[in-house]
Structure formats: structure tokens, C-alpha cells
């Protein structure tokens, strides 16, 4: 009897406290959303505030971005393209590697795995300057390719795919071999589909990393019509620009679609992460 009452109380406490935590975590985004209807230069002067003056609110920022900020939408397109390319290329490369590390016994396998961990530890910033010089001499500065290339080596994804593939049934491979499948056929037709959930999870993480990537594109992208969203938005944060309307409304429009996409896809995403698990 007593424990039942206790449980009800606990339920209430747990749910309410979680609701509060969610509210706090979401507050910045809600704050941005509400503030995006305020005149942008006022917002830059006063900051995001609890006090809301409804008479002062309008949709000017959004009108401006839809009607006059063609540059913003080209940044949007660039970010979509670059993220798409990064997801496809890095997943393709790293899933093969992770799969090979998990499924085959070959000379140098352990060495290779250590190598992957080492890459994980090298700060990108030390590679940055030489990489930049490479891009310049390859004459691909200011192209999508220059942004995407360094992201192809994705040690986290390799690591994750290895862990995931280790849980796949090896018997399937043997059965397929007896049926006359090539090793490549086994990978592409049988195992890769089985890795689906983990691919979805990594697609989201890689896509996010690329969507939000800042320092590298800042170096290799030159022309305004090649900028990605983070760079474009950062250019508006300077005292020389008076384009705060794009900055505020643009930030909202940058995160809202992703949030909607995430809410739709989250079950696949979580399934992918969950079934993988990481075994130290």
C-alpha cells in the first residue's frame, strides 16, 4: 500500500522535474523564436529578455529574408549540398572500413584499428594549414569538394560501424558464399542493409557535423555565393554589417527544419544508436 502511494508521488516528481528541465533546455530556442519577431537592431541592443512588448512585434525580419536576402538562400543551398555530399561519401568509406575490421581477419587489422583511434586524437587544427595549402595547389579552393574532402576521413564513424558490424551474424556470410555471392555482393546486398539503423544514426551525426562545420569552410570558401550557413551567419555578426534582420530570422530558419526532421526521424535514429551500443 505504502509503496504504491510512494510510487505515485515519485511519478509526479519525476515527470514534473523533467518537464522543468526540458523547459530550461528549450528556453534559448523558444527565446530566439519569440525574439525573432522583434526589430532586429533593438534585439542586438537589449538582448533576449523576459519582458515582451507585443506592440513592438512584427514579421519584418521574415519578410526581409524571404524577399530581399537572396544570399541567405544560396547559403542554405550550399549547406544542404555539402552536408549531403559529406554524408554519402563519409558513410560509404567508413562503413566499408568498419565492416572489414569487424568481419575479416587480416594482417595489420589491429594496427589499423589503433590508427583509427589515433586519427581521432589528432586535432584538426594542426592539419588545417597544410591542408589549406594542398587545396590551393590542387586549385579546388572555393568549391564544395574542398569543404567535403577532409570530412571523408571519419574515425568516429569507423569506430561506430566496427562496433555495430561485430554484432552481425557471420553465418549469413558463409551461407551467402555457398550460394556463390562475391564478398562485395555480400557486403552491398546483405550486410549493408542489415547495418541500416547504424547508417541512419551516423548519417544524422555526420550530417550535423557538416551542417555546423565552421573553421574549415571559413578558410576554403571564398565567394559569398559559396558560403555555408554558419559562415554566412557569422559574417553578419560583425559591427560592419547592418544585416541583423537576416541574422535573427535566418538563425530560426536554420534550426527549425532540422528540428522538424529530427522529430520525424528520431525513432530510427535512436534505434540505430541503441542497437549498436559501444563495447569499450
Amino acid at each position, binding site marked *: 500500500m505504502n509503496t504504491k502511494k510512494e510510487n505515485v508521488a515519485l511519478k509526479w516528481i519525476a515527470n514534473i522535474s523533467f518537464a522543468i528541465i526540458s523547459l530550461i533546455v528549450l528556453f534559448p530556442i523558444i527565446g530566439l523564436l519569440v525574439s525573432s519577431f522583434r526589430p532586429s537592431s533593438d534585439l542586438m541592443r537589449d538582448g533576449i529578455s523576459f519582458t515582451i512588448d507585443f506592440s513592438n512585434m512584427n514579421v519584418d525580419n521574415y519578410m526581409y529574408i524571404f524577399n*530581399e536576402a537572396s544570399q541567405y538562400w544560396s547559403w542554405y543551398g550550399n549547406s544542404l549540398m555539402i552536408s549531403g555530399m559529406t554524408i554519402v561519401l563519409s558513410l560509404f568509406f567508413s562503413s566499408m572500413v568498419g565492416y572489414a575490421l569487424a568481419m575479416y581477419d587480416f594482417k595489420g587489422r589491429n594496427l589499423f584499428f589503433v590508427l583509427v583511434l589515433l586519427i581521432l586524437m589528432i586535432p584538426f587544427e594542426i592539419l588545417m594549414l597544410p591542408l589549406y595549402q594542398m587545396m590551393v595547389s590542387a586549385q579546388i579552393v572555393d568549391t564544395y569538394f574542398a569543404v567535403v574532402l577532409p570530412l571523408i576521413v571519419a574515425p568516429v564513424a569507423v569506430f561506430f560501424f566496427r562496433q555495430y558490424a561485430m554484432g552481425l551474424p557471420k553465418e549469413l556470410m558463409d551461407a551467402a558464399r555457398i550460394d556463390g555471392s562475391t564478398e562485395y555482393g555480400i557486403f552491398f546486398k546483405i550486410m549493408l542493409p542489415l547495418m541500416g539503423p547504424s547508417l541512419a544514426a551516423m548519417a544524422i551525426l555526420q550530417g550535423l557535423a557538416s551542417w555546423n562545420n565552421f573553421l574549415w569552410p571559413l578558410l576554403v570558401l571564398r565567394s559569398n555565393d559559396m558560403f555555408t550557413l554558419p559562415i554566412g551567419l557569422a559574417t553578419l555578426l560583425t559591427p560592419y554589417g*547592418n544585416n541583423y534582420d537576416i541574422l535573427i530570422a535566418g538563425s530560426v530558419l536554420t534550426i527549425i527544419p532540422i528540428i522538424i*526532421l529530427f522529430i520525424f526521424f528520431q525513432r530510427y535514429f535512436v534505434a540505430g544508436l541503441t542497437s549498436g551500443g559501444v563495447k569499450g
Partner: protein
Amino acid sequence: MKKSLLFLIIGLMSMVLIACGGGGDDDDAASEAEETAVVGEDLEDATEITFWTFVGQHMDLYSDAAERWNEENPDRPIKLSAETYPFEQMHNNLLLAVQSGQGGPDIADIEIGQFSNYLQGEVQLEPMNEYVEPVLENAVSSRFENYAQDGNYYGIPTHVGATVMYYNTEIMEEAGVDIESIQTWDDFVAAGEQVVANTDSVMWNVGTEDWLMDMWPMISQQESDAFNDQGEVILDNQTNIDTLQFLQDAIYEHEIAELTPGGMNQSEEFYGYFSEGGAASILAPLWYMGRFLDNMPDLEGKIAIRPLPAWEEGGDRSAGMGGTGTVVTNQAEDPELAKEFLAYAKLSEEGNIKLWTELGFDPPRWDTWESEEVRADNKYYDYFGDGIFDMLLEVREEINPLNFTEHTPDIISEYHTNVTQTVLRQNNQTPEEALKAAADVVRDQQ
């Protein structure tokens, strides 16, 4: 579930597409947001000249010049493509391009404080002597010296950057101060005390990230600097210590000033604050006029421009601050053409007049200051009254050259990150201690 997903994606895609399509054709409406410009696209055999800048408005000058050039020189047409980047990104990318010998533009704007970075090693810029030397005697020559090394003039200056005092006349009247009576810094302090006593405003603001708009011009007025002409650090000399002491006293001793909101007077916080009458004066170069027009339109007709107070009677009343040198890089496709075009756009008499009429800068060639075009009505005279160039002519001999070295950025960074913090914000170090420490840091790096 599946269906709704599909709808969602289609919806998102069409939103993006519509926006792209809709955004494409109203370039002219978004003049202030413009970040690229192309002139002469349709001309055959035009030589392409690329131009990088960090201030969008600067592109107007060159677009305008390119159109005139193509009319006057149909045999040598140019196709100008201009590009605006944020300050730091442009300088960093230009440095990387210069460093690696590839990927740079033909013509570029370089901010004065960054300029020395480009004069190290083998200079990768084209000397402009053939165009600069003939006009030097009719111009404020110290501005050209800022971009020169070993007798080679590399950069074409954009303005004199004569530093002046902007007074809010409404507040000054309310306080009962006649601004003509402010001749020296002592007068300025006395006037400040009156302002603080009689109004809700303070007299002035001292910035924590405003080396260019208080400390530097004020020591330049006294013929001091951060480096001497041999490039040795003199940041901690007595003049500079006294000047920083003056700034500290203005806040804590005389209580006529407070720290600049936002840290510098080119910030959104400050524009709001000053518009609402937070302070009565701003020390800034003449090009700051543009900030008033763009960011503080409410103050039209209420701002008076006067020379800086002098340190002693008869002392210098201005300093040349800020600036941008435009250069031709040796990566230019046709360096001779690029040089000639740059001189045409910016160094010619017409170019100098355009610097004023298009951009509101005080042009380096003073032989244009009395021309009809410069004296013709425009929005700056509407806002500030028409005495601007008479005042400039009055102080043009009182502008001292500045000494730049490759460590100038270090000085600025030390001043902004350490000196102003301890002396001005926290008030827990004496000017002498702070300047000595900063000077030593820079000396160690030399």
C-alpha cells in the same frame, strides 16, 4: 507516417526553391545587404579584375569607376568582380593567398593595422610609385607613408581619417556649455563636470576595445606613438602613461566619463546608448559620420563636429586614424592594367571626389577639398552642417604620421585584452604598470 514524411520533405524543398527563385531578381532592392558586384560581364575580351574588400560600400567606388573606365577605354575593357568578406576572414584569406602564392585577387583592401603583415618577407604587392609620386605634394602625405616600405608605395589610402570630436549640441546646451570654449583637454574636463552636474548624461566614453578611438589619437596628438620610427616599442613612455592616466581619471577621478557600452563605439549597444543621450561626445575619425547616418538617424541636426581639444594651447588638434590601403597583388593577371585602374579609381582627382561623394570619406588629396563637387550639397552636410571641410583645412597640418611595424597588431591586442581590463575596467593597476607589462610582452616577441 511514411506519407506525412514525404509531404514534409516536399514541403521543405519547395519552400527552399520558392525562396531561391523569389530572391534572385531583386538585387537592387537589397543595396545595403549587397556583398558582391560585377561590372562589364557582357564585354568581350574584357580582362577580369577581382577585388576583395571588407566594407561593402567600398565596392561602389570601384563599380562606378569600372563603368566610366569601360566607356573611356573601349579598347581595354575590364570586367570587375568585387567581393565583400568579414574583416578577419578577408585578411586571413588574403594572407594565406599571399603566403602560398595562389588564390589571391588582383586588387584588395587592407586595413592599416594589418598592413605590416603583408610587408614581410618578399613583398608580394606591386609598388604604385609611378602613380603616387606625382600627386604626393597635394595630399596628406603621411597617409601614403603608412603603406610604404623602402621607398616603395604599395597602398592607396582611402581617407585622411582626421580624428575629431562629435558633440551632441542638445546636451551641451542643456548643460550650459559653449562648445567653442573647449580648446584644451582641461577645458574638456571642466565642460564635462558641468554636463554631469546639469544633465542625466555623461560627457564622454572611454572604450575597452577602442585603441583607435581614444588612446592612439590622443598620444599621436602629442607626437608619441606605440613605436618610434626605428620600430622600437615606446608604448610605456611618459607621455603615454600620462595619457592613459588621463583616461583613467576621466572615469574614476573626475567622473565625467564611463566605459563605452559594448566596449567600442562601433557597436550596436553603443549606437542605442548614444541615440538616447547616454553621453555628450564621441571621439572618432571623420569617417565615423557614416555610422551616425546609418545607425543613429534620430540625431540629425543635433551633432556638431569640432577639432580635438589640444593638450596645450596651440597644440595639435587632430590625428589620422584608421584607414585602408588598396593594393595590387603580384598575382594579378595583368598587373599594369590593375595598377592603372586602381589609380584611376582612387588616386585621380575624380576618384578622390568620389571618395567623398560616394562614401563620405575625407579624401587624402586636399587639392580636392575646395572643389565644387566636394562642396555640393549632400546628406552629410544635411546631417552635420557644412563646415566640415573648412575645419579640415584648418587642422590638416596638425596630423602626425603613425609608426607601424609587424607588431602593431600585438600592441593593439595587448591594449585591448590586458591594459584596458586592468586600468580602465577593474581599476586595479596603475597605467604605468599596465603599459610596462604590455610593452615587455611585445618586446619579447620582437
